[in-house]
């Protein structure tokens, strides 16, 4: 389980880099990020983390509701 979490967080890292690079970097005339690109990458990462947390909450609520429904259905069936 711990191993899976470690893999997940590393793969999240790579995905963040890929996504925010794709969105924010469009010019390859210089070899360093300019101010605008840097702030875009940083905001993109921070916003993605926040949205993932929110999506996680909604997902957990949904799963709790489903388990309650399943339990109620099992109770009613008795």
């Amino acid at each position, binding site marked *: 389980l711990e191993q899976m979490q470690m893999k*997940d967080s590393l793969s999240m890292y790579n995905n963040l880099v890929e996504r925010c690079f794709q969105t924010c970097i469009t010019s390859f005339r210089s070899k360093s990020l300019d101010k605008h690109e840097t*702030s*875009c990458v940083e*905001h993109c990462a921070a916003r993605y983390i926040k949205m*993932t947390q929110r*999506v*996680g909450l*909604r997902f957990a609520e949904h799963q709790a509701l489903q388990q309650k429904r399943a339990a109620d259905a099992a109770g009613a069936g008795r």
Partner: protein
Amino acid sequence: PDPLFAATTEMEMYTHLFNKMASTCFEKCASRKHKEEDLALGEMSCSDRCVSKYLEAQEKVGVVLQKANEAQMKQQQNFADMQNALGG
């Protein structure tokens, strides 16, 4: 089948589903300009509706997949029955 393997695989599937959902809802709801460090209210409520629709779509697809699996099994059963009848 190994119950531990089944549990791990199911958990991997949920993790994978969750990651795809988060990624897709980010793409659909977050402005790509990333001017602010925080999410706007509209982006957050969009993502709530996106999750809700995603999970509903997941349910619908599950039903279709289940039906397809049953149809395939029935076909294989029919084929086996036919072979038995011819062989018997």
